[in-house]
């Protein structure tokens, strides 16, 4: 299966070629080069999946390629390689497929943009990094690609670098995730310090004595291993926009919409989920406290983001908060999961990751199609678009049904498994998840009715349906959103790589469909036609509503902490110390050096007899010193 290497090599070479020749390549050629390569990579990824899942009976970890990059000790070494196991193969398929759709869509969406070639070059860099991340054989390789993904996200959010908001959003995304990655790095170092290895196969081996040994050393009430895992999860929470490290994701919507679809909905933001899944055996066997933290953060973000999403008016921000909320589901499912036959949550989480990639990418591409036609983002200025964009309308509706969890659409099946897993673990988590399911249905259909129904607005230009090249990817993803749920996911992906037979839990299914229908009905009553009901509702909730509109003031809190407290109380004194003590000391040494140099100038007189005199004195001095010191 060494052709897997090609899946990574293709986007990398496109990045290099497009990047180096960005000034000289015609747009169409560069675009098709990138899209074509991604097409080949997609075919290879599906082939890999076919060979992996259907050509062998057991799902062992396979390492088709590995080189040792840096060797520190006998066991501690940084490898570069490819690790194939069910979750990485599944991710390969998701990443290449969504990438291909987004690449195709971008050919239409970005047409005529300045920097078209640069865009595709960065997009390829992202795909390469994300693929490298999921196939990493060890924590350090994963970390390196993790940062590469962060860089490509930064570059793409700031794609319109002449727009100050885009630049600010790019910086915010990079700094917040970097801050989280600091925790990640410390976690990696802690773990590798005690276990002496970065290798996943060794770390996740349940019989690894070194990992088990870490549970014996405790620090502030928790074992060192728990601390390490919580720190690693901090990195994951940053990338996956979990509370309280979520503040960058809504702003990241400044990037082009296809970028949001690929990076900030379907792939990069689930890297945190992937990370926890990758380390899952360690969490599950040795550090249940860390897993509790994952569940709690996931559940909190799930509800928190869903509430905010109900109040937003920017179409992409609604989708961004919805993404956070859905990733909360995945984290929650991982957090409540057990191992082996108890591992429903694990499978459910991966399943939801899979289906979510389709319908959330579709939602973003649909939003892109609308923005492309209207050149605005505010849903209050949209209405009755079903007349103007019939295809977009249909696929968007499919995606909304999928995310709301209406059978037989994809989201229903994965969400049902998550709710069952949560119910089996803790009724409170189940309550939160069910409430959020209702809210999800409500805010998605609020968006849907406001945009596609409601009153006709006056538009500057009559909106038109998007070109075919944008519609095709949306239709493909719509098909995925309809049918992805029928895949017997537990047969392929499970916590211990043994088939897990899952059944539709009928009670849970009925509850979840009921709450979803409730949410849709409320949205239908409020928003299908222009009405004052929604205002009355927001007035009833008053303070809560305003807080939610302002995203619960988390951004303001961060600004207060950084600008007021950290800058004033810590940074300023340090800056003063640096300027007046350290710099002054440096200046002082430079002045002294210069002065000495000037003073000894006379030594070099240019007179030969003087030189001979110094020569001889030197010899005699050395002789005298040596005689006195050595006798």
């Amino acid at each position, binding site marked *: 299966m060494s052709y897997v290497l090609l899946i990574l090599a293709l986007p990398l070479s496109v990045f290099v070629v497009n990047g180096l020749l960005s000034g000289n390549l015609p747009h169409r050629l560069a675009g098709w080069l990138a899209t074509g390569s991604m097409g080949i990579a997609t075919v290879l990824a599906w082939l890999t999946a076919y060979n992996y899942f259907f050509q062998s009976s057991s799902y062992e970890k396979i390492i088709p390629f590995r080189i040792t990059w840096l060797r520190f000790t006998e066991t501690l070494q940084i490898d570069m390689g490819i690790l194939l196991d069910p979750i990485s193969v599944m991710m390969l398929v998701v990443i290449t497929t969504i990438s291909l759709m987004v690449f195709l869509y971008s050919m239409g969406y970005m047409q005529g943009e300045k920097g078209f070639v640069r865009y595709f070059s960065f997009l390829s860099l992202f795909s390469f990094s994300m693929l490298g991340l999921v196939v990493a054989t060890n924590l350090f390789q994963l970390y390196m690609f993790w940062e590469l993904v962060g860089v490509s996200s930064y570059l793409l959010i700031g794609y319109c670098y002449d727009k100050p908001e885009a630049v600010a959003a790019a910086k915010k995304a990079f700094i917040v995730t970097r801050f989280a990655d600091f925790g990640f790095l410390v976690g990696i170092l802690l773990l590798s310090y005690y276990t002496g290895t970065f290798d996943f196969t060794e770390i996740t081996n349940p019989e690894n004595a070194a990992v088990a040994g870490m549970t014996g050393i405790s620090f502030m009430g928790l074992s060192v291993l728990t601390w390490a895992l919580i720190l690693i999860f901090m990195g994951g929470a940053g990338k996956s926009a979990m509370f309280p490290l979520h503040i960058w994701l809504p702003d990241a919507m400044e990037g082009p919409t296809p970028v949001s679809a690929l990076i900030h909905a379907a792939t990069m933001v689930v890297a945190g989920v992937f990370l926890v899944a990758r380390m899952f055996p360690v969490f599950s066997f040795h550090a249940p406290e860390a897993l509790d933290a994952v569940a709690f953060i996931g559940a909190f973000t799930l509800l928190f983001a869903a509430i905010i999403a109900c109040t937003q008016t920017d179409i992409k921000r609604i989708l961004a908060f919805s993404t956070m909320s859905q990733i909360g589901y995945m984290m929650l499912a991982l957090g409540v999961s057990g191992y082996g036959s108890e591992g429903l949550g694990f499978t459910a989480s991966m399943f939801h990751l899979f289906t979510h990639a389709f319908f959330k990418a579709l939602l973003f591409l649909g939003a892109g199609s609308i923005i492309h036609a209207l050149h605005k983002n505010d849903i209050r200025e949209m209405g009755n678009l079903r007349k103007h964009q019939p295809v977009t309308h249909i696929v968007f509706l499919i995606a909304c049904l999928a995310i709301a969890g209406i059978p037989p659409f994809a989201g229903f099946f994965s969400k049902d498994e998550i709710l069952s897993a949560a119910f089996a673990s803790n009724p409170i988590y189940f309550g939160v998840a069910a409430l959020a399911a209702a809210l999800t249905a409500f805010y998605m259909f609020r968006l849907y009715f406001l945009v596609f129904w409601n009153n006709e607005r006056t538009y500057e230009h009559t909106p038109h349906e998007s070109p075919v090249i944008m519609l095709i990817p949306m239709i493909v993803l719509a098909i995925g959103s309809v049918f992805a749920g029928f895949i017997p996911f537990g047969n392929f992906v499970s916590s211990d790589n043994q088939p897990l037979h899952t059944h539709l839990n009928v009670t849970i299914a009925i509850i979840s469909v009921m709450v979803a229908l409730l949410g849709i009905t409320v949205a239908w009553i409020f928003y299908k036609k222009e009405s004052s009901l929604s205002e009355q509702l927001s007035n009833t909730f008053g303070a809560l509503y305003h807080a939610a509109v302002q995203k619960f003031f988390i951004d303001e809190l961060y600004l207060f902490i950084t600008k007021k407290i950290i800058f004033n109380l810590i940074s300023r004194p340090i800056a003063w110390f640096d300027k007046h003590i350290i710099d002054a000391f440096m200046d002082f040494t430079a002045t002294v050096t210069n002065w000495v*140099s000037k003073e*000894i*100038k006379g030594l070099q007189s240019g007179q*030969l007899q003087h*030189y001979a005199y110094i*020569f001889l004195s*030197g*010899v005699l001095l050395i002789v005298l010193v*040596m005689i006195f*010191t050595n006798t």
Partner: protein
Amino acid sequence: MSLNELMIMRHEWALVAVALVLLIAEIAMPVEKKKQINGLAAALAAVVVVLGFLPAQYGSLFGGMYVTDPLRILMKNILNIGVLLIILQSVSWLRQDLYHDRSSEFYLLTFASLIGVNYMISSGHFLMFYLGLELTTIPIAALASYEQFKSKSAEAGIKLILSSAFSSAILLFGISVLYAANGNLYFESFELSSSLINTLGFIFFFSGLAFKISIVPFHLWTADVYEGSPTNVTSYLSVISKGSAIFILVIVLFTLFNSIQLLWQDVLYATSILTMTIGNLFAIRQQNLKRFLAFSSIAQAGFIMLGVINASALGMATVIYFMLVYVFSNLAAFGVIQTVGHASGKITIDDYNGLYKTNPQLSLVMMLALFSLAGIPPLAGFFGKFFLFTAVAESGFYVLLTIAVLNTVISLYYYLLVVKAMFINTNATPIAAFKSDYAMRISLVICVVGILVTGFYSPVFEYIKNLCETF
């Protein structure tokens, strides 16, 4: 003498033959064709370099007066490459009409001096060593005043010959003291006890050799001679002459004077600190680039002593590796100074302001050379310095290491001054754009390749280290 025995001395034979060929050419060639001697000399130098790399016999001749082994061959080869580079850099300078009837003088004297260098490195006897040393110096003193019509050049020649006579006297005195104490001058059977008289003899001997390496306080001749001599002679002095002295110093310290290691470590400890610091402090103030490089090369000699102090195979390897890097870096810098000086007659740092605008390629070469001398990664100079510092750290001389690192900072400052002049400073009348000749370009390309390859290609150091471990 059988053919095998002849082959043992092939470096020297080849050079003698080259010198004779040049002499005959000088006599036989008609005056109007004399310019061809330049090309001939460069070709012959290349042949010598190639011959040096052919596999050969090792052993000793003349009852132990003359010895070779793989390490000495390597040393000779390094210096031969240096001489080839210098000759390539001299070609266009000596093609001027001014020198057309005496350019062979330059080559003859250079090769004569190189013969001395080779004999000195291969010496197995103090007398042999002394002969080699004198043969190295005297032709160069003549070359220093090659531009007789310039008073500075004449001054350089006379200063070099007088101070080197003085240092030779000191060195000979040291040798005679050693002879008096031990009754023997063969290296092989030399047994040294740490008595007072041996200490005395060693210090005098060392001072004479330290003069060649320009170790403080025996360095005072350096700046005046470097400044006054023609640039190519200066590069010969700073690379070949200094390098050969360092090589022989390493050899004698590690073999002959091994028994008084503690003594010479103390001496080197003090002088290397002095050398680095004084060299750097003087280099800061220089405007004339040749004087500037003179002092910087004094400081470099101080750094090299760090490797010698280590007194093990590792230390020896770092010294030889550093010299290899130093040959390429320093000759690249001197090559640029030579070609710029030849084309425009300008030689101060201020003249170089804005050089990048008019001559970008030369400026880049100069920048690489200076960065390598300063020890900026990933250039070879960085690894050279890094290994030297490793050697010091390994011997546990942390104070010395700290001083060395501080000195690196100072050296970085003045090397960057030149880079800043070329790339950042502006100049109303910059040095006009010009094309250097092919020989010069070949030489600079070899230097740049050397600076990059010796840094990136780690087997170079491994090879040297292996040779030193079996020495």
